[in-house]
């Protein structure tokens, strides 16, 4: 299928409900492979909900329900036979607040491979840990203290540890939910540089409420707003350059120029 060669994920008429409340109304979104796609919009418009629907994280919310399809490798992630655990191994996630496990840096990285049935030797694991930390631009900071707790790192380092941890299971897609909102500007820039590196090998979807970040770091941008029933909808979606310099929708223009939201 040609669409799935170019795109990693396709959301088709995806609506998300929390109980009877419709949080997302019929979203269509194609996520291009090896690109960074940013989801922007005012808070509460459903960006996180959309992101969490891409790797079935919303299964953990008992009241949440998804209608429509999310296509990944020509399969609907919400087909009855699909195993959410398998989905999450291939579509990793980085959260708003860094959440390293209260274990050593090494064990934080090794956790994912170990649970997905890692068979390699100790030295191979050492290599994988080093490789993942290098890819997350954290190796030089922590190579002498791999046995130290992941929580002993600074916020920015913790977030890069969480990225390294996600990389270690070798996913295809990395979903990031406002990964920099708890970080200082320098750490934020580091993560953005890192994303640029990572998109060579991964597809990245990032939620951000920082417009400059979306403009700086992403290839595509989807702008969300709530409709009259408070359900999130896509107002405009396109290449980031176009959307920011030449928005087609008046509401997009208002939002990116800071006139509301």
């Amino acid at each position, binding site marked *: 299928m040609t669409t799935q060669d170019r795109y990693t994920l396709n959301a088709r008429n995806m609506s998300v409900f929390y109980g009877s409340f419709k949080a997302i109304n019929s979203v269509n979104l194609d996520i291009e492979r090896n690109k960074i796609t940013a989801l922007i919009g005012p808070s509460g418009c459903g960006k996180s909900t959309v992101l969490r629907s891409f*790797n079935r*994280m919303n299964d*953990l919310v*008992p009241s949440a329900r998804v209608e429509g399809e999310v296509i990944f490798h020509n399969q609907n992630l919400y087909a009855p036979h699909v195993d959410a*655990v*398998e989905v*999450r*191994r*291939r579509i*990793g*996630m*980085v*959260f708003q*607040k860094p*959440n*390293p*496990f*209260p*274990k050593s840096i090494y064990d934080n990285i090794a*956790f*994912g491979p170990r*649970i*997905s049935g890692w068979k390699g030797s100790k030295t191979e694991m050492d290599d994988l840990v080093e490789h993942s930390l290098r890819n997350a631009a954290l190796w030089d900071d922590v190579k002498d203290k791999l046995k130290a*707790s992941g*929580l002993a790192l600074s916020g920015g380092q913790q977030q890069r540890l*969480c990225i390294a*941890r*996600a990389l270690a*299971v070798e996913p295809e897609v990395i979903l990031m939910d406002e990964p920099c909102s708890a970080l200082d500007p320098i750490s934020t820039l580091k993560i953005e540089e890192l994303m640029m590196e990572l998109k060579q090998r991964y597809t990245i979807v990032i939620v951000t409420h920082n417009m400059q970040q979306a403009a700086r770091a992403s290839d595509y941008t989807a702008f969300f707003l709530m409709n009259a029933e408070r359900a999130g909808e896509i107002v405009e979606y396109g290449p980031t350059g176009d959307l920011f310099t030449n928005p087609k929708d008046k509401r997009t223009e208002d939002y990116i120029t800071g006139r509301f939201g």
Partner: protein
Amino acid sequence: MDDKASAGVSMDSRVAGVRRETAETTLNLRKKSRPGENVIQGFLLFCGVLSMFTTIGIVLVLGNESLHFFTNDNVSITEFLTGTQWSPQIGQFGILPLLLATLVTSFIAMLVALPLGLGAAIYLSEYASPRARKILKPVLEVLAGVPTIVYGYFALTFMTPLLQSIFGKDTVNIYNMAAAGLVMGIMILPLVCSMSEDALSAVPRSLREGAYGLGATRLETATKIVVPAGLSGIIAAFVVAISRAVGETMIVAVAAGAGPNFTLNPFASAETMTGHIARISGGDLSYDSIDYNSIFAIGMLLFLLTLVLNMGSRRLVRRFREVYE
């Protein structure tokens, strides 16, 4: 005079609401007396001091009476701690039979309470729907409120016959440590479950999401992330449970047997330290008799045992704790 004036001004400004800008008002930063605060604080201090002094009092009485036992009654501490026979009539005061019975019943109780309690806690915090949790937690709490004498007769009239029908009447004594231990485990289970559940629920949700986000199953998340993160609380639960088992009296007094017996056989009858104290102090004891003094020595040992347990567990917790945030 001055005082009154400034008080008047501050009253005015309060009446007028927020009017800080007006230049004339002087801000009143004087200390106010708050009698309510002081009374409460005093009362809380009293509570703290009271419980502390109670403990100290108990230790003093125990210590004093056991000192009598060891000095006046010609029982040496080594004899007490290493003797394998407890027969006050013939002057044998070896604690080991009583201690061993305590350890055997407690061990059996822990075999039941720890795995089942932790399992139930994991189920409640990680698997159960909010509705199931709402129903099950109160049920557990009711179970924890059943008087221990009821458990004692449950052991004697249900557990013992059950064991006898499984292992044979010849193997299982009417009074036996196994039945008492098993039922004691059931009694302690809700405590272990409830305390462990609190520890597991206190683990931040973000850690679970992190694990799920890496493709962990529910079981992997529970056993590899949540339980280790809540370990200090779980160990605390275990220690409280062991102390509870070591100190439990009614069940063993009713179901384990009346008479010291130096044996490891769980189907034999044997008397625990607490059971012995209960039986001896239930009879007519004259103060200053050697029997009377001996129960304080046993009590002292019980006290030390739980003290050591608590201190040991603190070290253990500090060692293995996974601190989150």
